[in-house]
């Protein structure tokens, strides 16, 4: 069971959290102007990254707050957590070399 670093509560067992999938997918402000393909891309398509991945978590059984995390999906290491609405922090050189940042925010 992972330890998830909640930015508000600190490290807690994974069972207290809800996983929210890929981060930084903003809901289109004018969906009616999008083509079917563009809308389908927003609703259905997600990247499936091996390496550093920006994703969302919610501390459901704790502070109930959503937050973003950078996790290496290969090692399950949490590299950073940051609040909703914030840009992903730049990681130190070493992790970046091992696994290039996800295209969604690179």
């Amino acid at each position: 069971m992972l330890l998830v670093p909640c930015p508000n509560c600190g490290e807690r067992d994974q069972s207290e959290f809800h996983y929210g999938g890929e981060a930084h997918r903003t809901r289109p402000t004018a969906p009616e102007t999008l083509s079917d393909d563009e809308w389908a891309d927003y609703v259905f398509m997600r990247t499936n990254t091996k390496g550093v991945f920006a994703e969302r978590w919610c501390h459901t059984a704790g502070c109930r707050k959503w937050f973003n995390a950078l996790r290496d999906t290969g090692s399950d290491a949490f590299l950073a957590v940051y609040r909703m609405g914030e840009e992903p922090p730049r990681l130190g050189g070493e992790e970046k070399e091992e696994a290039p940042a996800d295209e969604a925010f690179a």
Partner: protein
Amino acid sequence: MSVQAYRLEDGGRIDRTAPLTFRFDGRAYAGYRGDTLASALLANGVRTLARSFKYHRPRGVLTAGSEEPVALVQVGGDPATTVPNVRATELELYDGLEAFPQNCWPSLGRDVGVVNDALARFLPAGFYYKTFMGPPLNWMRFEGAIRAAAGMGRSPTAPDPDRYEHVNRHCEVLVIGGGAAGLVAAREAARTGARVILAEETGALGGGLLAGAPDAVTIDGRPAWAWLAEIEAELRAMPEVTLLTRTTGTGWYDRNWVTLAEAVLDHLPPAARDPRLPRQRLWRVRAKAVVLATGAIERPLLFHANDRPGVMLAGAVRAYLHRWGVAPGRRAVVATNNTDAWRTAFDLAAAGVEIAAIVDSRARPDERLLARAQALGLPVRAGSAVVAAKGRSEVRGAVIARADGGGREDVACDLLVVSGGWAPNLALYAQSKGAIAWDDDLQAFRPQPNGAAARFAGRAAGAFDLAASLRAAAVAGAEAAGIAPEHVPEVADDGVAYALAPAPKPQGGRVFVDLQNDVTTKDIRLAAAEGYRSIEHAKRYTTLGMGTDQGKTSGLNGVATLADTLDKTIPEVGVTTFRPPYKPVSFGAVAGRQVGELFHPRRTTAMHEAHVEAGAVFELVGDWLRPRVYPQAGESFDDALQRECRAARSSCAVLDASTLGKIDVKGPDAREFLNRVYTNAWMKLAPGRCRYGLMCNEDGMVFDDGVTACLADDHFHMTTTTGGAAGVLAWLEEYLQTEWPELKVYLTSVTEQWAVASICGPESPKLAAELFDDIDADPQAFPFMSHTSGHIADVPVRVFRISFTGEVSYEINVPARYGLWLWRLIEARGAKYGLTPYGTEGMHLLRAEKGFIIAGQDTDGTVTPLDLGMRWAVKNSADFIGRRSLFRSDTARPDRRQLVGLATADPATVLTEGAQVIAEPAERSGRTPMIGHVTSSYFSPNLGRSIALALIAGGHGKTGATVHVARRGAAPVPAEITATDFLAGFGERP
């Protein structure tokens, strides 16, 4: 009762003043407190404990611990508490213990299944695979015979009466293994005041030191066993140290989350088990650092008939001598490739066992060992190996051959002690994805610590000499606690450094690699020849290492055999993946207290007591127990349902609606928020008014619905379905926090704050008028889809004029603590109006008469508001979640499944919910196209006929058409497509 003919005169950590009697295979035996079943049977001269899995060959005791592959027994005859596949080497003896041999019939001695052994060449590797892949009928033909002949113990057949517990703990340092190394590591870590948990698998601390004479070595100037007692006392006196015995580290998961299985009471006679204690505990420990002091596992040697009872590992024989005072034979051959097994030979000789030969595959064993053997007069065969065991059912001798091809020699013996060297026990470490590397000097894999996740103490670190082993332990323990080691024990032993040569290769015959699953070297070679050249494939094809022992003693020999076959090295072949649990854990321990009523907590409403008194039949909705119907004496379920539904439309009925999800939505942007999450418009809903709404996901599919009331311009009371409440709240929070943080809205779940009694029916306005202190109940003055606040007997209430039945209704909300009082008051005041309590089944029926949907019953995540015919609930004015999806090409298709009513041609026929709808009056012989399915179906007492709702392709354009509802084993039922509201023009509607 037989005498303990193989018990030594003295010695052993057994209590000779506490004799015990036990039964095995129908016979009574004597043993002592401190024995295991294996040691007591060996003391009694019983050497055959089991029949093997596939060939029914006699099997004895190979080891003295949890790695035992074959000495498996069934414990206890009670169908509720019997335990299969218990390792006799671990089972602590108690008075009255009864154990049975497994996989033999009619008895252990006369087992007819042994015929399989003669047929071995017809049961090759991949037998199951080949049977499955062969002609289809083969498996059917063989299955019965295979299931009867192959197998292990029997599962219990009655519910387990015992109690099990989970324990959750955090600690700084978790030490797994309570041998000398584990104790030293724990002491170093505990010096810092850190919380230390040490888990030892057996009932006693000491590990390998207990498998040697009490004074075989000295540590810090003290004889081994005296030192053990002192360090144990030292640790027990430390308040932050927890010493757990009979506790096995079974799983090492992410971030040092480790499970420990503790057998709390299993070693006691059932009558002596403290009823306050659980039988077993599962500890779930989150540790900052883990020290593995899991010791090492000895590797057997490969030769013909190496599975005969009487073939035992050298370390195990030493343990039986010293820990249990048992010499498991009279005349022994000791076969080895290493220095350590010589100690067993010397100890056997000291115990009076005749040593027929010490057979060492190395040409030049250590001079000191040779000198000692010579001094004791023990014959030595250097540069030789045992190539076969002799004896029809148990060991009667050994065939010794010289490595240089010289002559063969038959030596009589009844004990064949073997050692192929020791391998660090790294199963837990490998589970946690720890790296291991082959060490040619050790002829074993050793840990390659990667970072600070794991530390190794003792033989688990690959340190096989005690001084080095305890030095590694002190360093591991100290570093785990973040300090430098302080107390490195000084050790004095016989000074012979551990050394070994590669294990000698087998010379043909029936050579068993995996004794539990009856896998031979020939099976592995066949697997390789048939293309299963990866160790993972060969494992599955032959079942090597797939038994309850998970190949603890066979893994390395299996890899070595495959490597030899493929002409590769052992590291080139590699090892199979290690997975938890390290050894079998009972389902009871895994389940803990979460069984029966505690399996899943049930929620009950404030009015629950009244429902129980009324004899309600309950059903589970979400986590809630809700009354389904209230049958009266002598009344069937259906009779009760029909009576309740008639009352709701003819007089007056009451429903406990407390379980509906209730969310308080407050803030200046609350209205805008509702407008974005509901499909319909909310900007103009006035305070005091209510509105029904649908919620969709972004894919446009309906997932919940409910009525929301406007309490004030910035304050709303939202209701959701009972089962969807938590999900809706989480979904709303997600959008608020992640997409629209600029909206000023607070959400609070108030489901449990309000108890709700919903009264409905033509008499309900009179009842309501009688109940309310200060609310005008007249349906004209207090119109449909409005709400107000007031009092009943001075208790504040919030009343909603909303209806799920189509009847005049009042949903009366009171603070939850008044719920039961309100229910009883309504029942008392309502009696004269014919008030009838109704349950969820009646609610479902009544709403179906009106054509109201139940999200999750009439919808299934593929249904849009338009499919439901609820265009009136979809706004044009603004965006909402899922709106764009309603205009995707697929959601705009005219032939989508759409919700319609169905009226069967025969009004008495009630359709089956879920039944498939077809267009044709009869099913074709091939595949008949399905055009939809029935979602809800009832017999309506108020209409006197059956009614149903169905999702049918293009259904909205087919009103009046006849479709057919398929049945199993009967002709399809014709039915006409109708509108969904069967009561059109009857009563109120939104």
